[in-house]
């Protein structure tokens, strides 16, 4: 919510980072990437990963939740320093913020509906400001936008939308738990350049720190272990 503040100049940021607290912004509503667990705490793949990155880089990290809708503006204005919120790397976003390398491989998006013959060119629900929403708008289907991912699925359940279009990995556990009520429809669509952490374009030093740890974790297999833990199933993503 709070909206102002500064994107620190590169030189200030670099000097200040060593002992500063790094604030990581996330949505807290996008399992398995990030969500709030029964205990009321943040949990998920990105929480584990972010904590590991901070531990290895010797940073003190603090998690902040922010609505998806305004997650980029609040980064730019300095309310937090990093976004880890299942955010796909896209060209449009890269014009405003900078990304680390991907820590989740380029992913597929999928349609889910109540039956396999559902009309994916009809009314399709998607979360605002996502690559999926952009894709639906371009496809010519009627886009129904919601603020949170949960609401997009609810819209299909109650018939408000014919289908929902979202990350395959977000939809998979929901479809599995629905006991046949929800099914995947049509082909999966590869979108985006993988999921990465977003930073202000002036924060090069911090980005390099994050990048170095991600490279290290890819090399020693610990990232794959985390992926296997949070995205189990037939097709475990891996590097």
């Amino acid at each position, binding site marked *: *919510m*709070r909206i102002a503040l500064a994107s620190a100049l590169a030189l200030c940021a670099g000097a200040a980072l060593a002992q*500063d607290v790094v604030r990581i912004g996330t949505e807290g509503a996008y399992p398995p990437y990030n969500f709030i667990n029964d*205990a009321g*705490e943040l949990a998920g793949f990105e929480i584990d990963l972010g904590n590991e990155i901070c531990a290895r880089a010797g940073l003190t990290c603090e998690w902040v939740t922010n609505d998806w809708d305004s997650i980029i503006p609040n980064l730019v204005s300095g309310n937090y320093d990093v976004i880890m919120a299942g955010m796909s790397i896209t060209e449009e976003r890269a014009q405003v913020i900078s990304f680390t390398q991907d820590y989740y491989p380029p992913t597929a998006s999928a349609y889910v509906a109540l039956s396999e013959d559902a009309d994916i060119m009809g009314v399709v629900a998607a979360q605002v400001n996502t690559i999926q929403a952009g894709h639906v708008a371009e496809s010519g289907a009627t886009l129904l936008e919601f603020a949170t991912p949960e609401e997009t699925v609810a819209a299909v359940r109650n018939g408000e939308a014919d289908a929902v279009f979202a990350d395959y990995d977000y939809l998979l556990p929901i479809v599995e738990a629905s006991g046949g009520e929800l099914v995947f429809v049509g082909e999966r669509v590869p979108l985006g350049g993988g999921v990465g952490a977003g930073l202000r374009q002036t924060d090069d030093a911090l980005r390099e720190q994050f990048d170095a740890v991600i490279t290290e974790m890819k090399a020693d297999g610990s990232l794959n272990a985390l992926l296997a833990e949070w995205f189990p199933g037939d097709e475990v993503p891996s590097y």
Partner: protein
Amino acid sequence: MCDDPANLDTLLWFVCYLTTGKHLAFYGAFGTVLLLLAVTAPVALLLGFGGAIAARSRLAPVAWLGKGYIAVVRGVPDIAFFLFFVIALDQGLEWLRHQWLCPDWTEPVRQGQNFLVCPEAKLPLATAPQWIHEVYGFALAVVTFAIVFGAFAANVLYGAMAAVPRAQIETAEAYGMTHAQAFRRVLVPQMWVYALPGLSNLWMILIKASPLLFLLGVRDIVYWARELGATQTPRFTDYPHGDWRMWYFLFLLVFYLALTRLSEIVLGRVMRRLTRGQAMAGGEVQRRAEAAA
């Protein structure tokens, strides 16, 4: 007991479900709402008092300021004000600090779509712990509520001050009291009974405005009701359930009905107490009722 909820019977399942950490946060949020009401009401009353005095001032510019405050805030719709003030206050404060702390800064503060002040001027400082960020967010919300409701209170008090019979003040001045003394000793004590109906109404409106905290980014009861009521998949929770948002919001509805009803009863009692012995219609009705009994 709650280690394996899947095997509990319905009653125990609900006992465990309703005491998860997430639910405790939900219950805590009711405290946030009550805290907002408890803090906002006196601050708004104070602002309103200041506004009413300013509007009555014999100095024209001060009177314009007071009347302008009342008119502007009351003339513009709803939540637009809430949404606006929270950002405007934050940016305004940081801009002032920026001017004060970083006089040598040459870059423009507003660059295209960004609002950039120097790091020392940030509020709270980027290095501050998370709880300070949260308190600051809540404080902004309280100030926003107080500004908006202060204007309403100012209007009510302005009317109440005008309603005190002129003869009362003239008598006070005839006894040799100064203007300020007459104001303090005669006008202020007497105006409350005239102000109370308006202030009661304002309190009700304040209660009903409190869920708008949600729009100001505070994690309030609306946030948690939406979060808790949403469909939960078994992989991420021990308590999977379907879409229960309707029931959570029904609970909020009942909570607010109880709160407004309770306020109505309490304020009714206060009004009866205050009108006792007053030379007003209400006092007259009471007097007759007592005489008849």
